[in-house]
């Protein structure tokens, strides 16, 4: 086994992670509720309608955060894959099991809200556009990961196979990001980039950022909660298995 870096080693202990989760959860949950209430009200009722798209532009305030979260959660899966394969981090496999369904949900919502935007704007629910297709591939990668990690009787085998799938599938993330630049797509180019000024009005940018922060905090809270529950379930299973063994030993004696 290779030496684990200090920070990873510190949170490899489930007890340490549970203490961290207990401290962070109220802040994550409270922050998510505040940001989402403000962001959704701003996006739905205060932000201006677009001169071309009209009110349909409001779908962007939920569609863009879901796209961001679908990609981020998959990056999280890939990081868990590295931690699991290289350092055998005990929480990485549990985290991968818990992140998968949340990321799949975000990818599905991104595709559905995109379709709900596309029907009135493009006149169709779906086109085999590079951005849409690469996002659909990401959704299928999530489904594959969820199925694979639970597919074996011996959990370690499933976790190893799923970690490899997560690492192989990470190639889809740059394809999603740059698809609108590499190919001539119906999907509009990115409005926000790291290097350039945003191409959208600040009146629309603020609610978008607030909704994105709100959904990100919410997803972090959900993942922390699910992972804490998984640790408790695993401890209960271990204790029950130990007590069964003790009972068998005492009966044999």
């Amino acid at each position, binding site marked *: 086994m290779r030496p684990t870096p200090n920070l990873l080693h510190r949170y490899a202990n489930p007890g340490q992670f549970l203490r961290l989760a207990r401290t962070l959860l109220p802040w994550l949950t409270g922050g998510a509720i505040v940001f989402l209430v403000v962001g959704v009200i701003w996006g739905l009722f205060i932000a201006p309608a677009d001169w071309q798209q009209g*009110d349909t532009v409001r779908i962007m305030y939920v569609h863009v955060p879901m796209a961001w979260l679908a990609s981020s959660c998959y990056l999280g899966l890939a990081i868990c894959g590295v931690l699991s394969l290289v350092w055998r981090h005990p929480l990485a496999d549990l985290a991968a099991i818990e992140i998968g369904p949340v990321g799949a949900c975000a990818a599905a919502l991104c595709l559905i809200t995109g379709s709900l935007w596309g029907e009135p704007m493009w006149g169709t629910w779906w086109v085999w556009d590079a951005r849409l297709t690469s996002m659909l591939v990401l959704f299928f990668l999530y489904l594959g990961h969820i199925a694979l990690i639970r597919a074996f009787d011996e959990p370690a085998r499933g976790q190893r196979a799923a970690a490899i799938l997560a690492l192989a599938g990470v190639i889809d993330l740059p394809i999603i990001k740059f698809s609108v630049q590499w190919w001539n797509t119906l999907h509009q180019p990115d409005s926000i980039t790291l290097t350039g000024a945003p191409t959208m009005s600040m009146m629309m940018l603020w609610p978008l950022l607030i909704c994105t922060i709100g959904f990100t905090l919410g997803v972090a809270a959900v993942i922390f909660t*699910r992972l804490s529950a998984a640790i408790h379930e695993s401890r209960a299973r271990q204790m029950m298995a130990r007590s069964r063994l003790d009972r068998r030993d005492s009966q044999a004696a």
Partner: protein
Amino acid sequence: MMHLPNHWPYIAASYALTLGCSLVLGVGAALRLRKSKARLAAVEGHARRRERSAS
């Protein structure tokens, strides 16, 4: 001024789906955590009682 058709059903459906799914995920995770904590406490209590009776 250009007349734009009413797209509010699409907008309402998008928000309802996204917020509904987020709520279901959040409440589901909270309930699961509560249930798992209660189960672990019950198992630990049972193990403690067994140890006490054995000693």
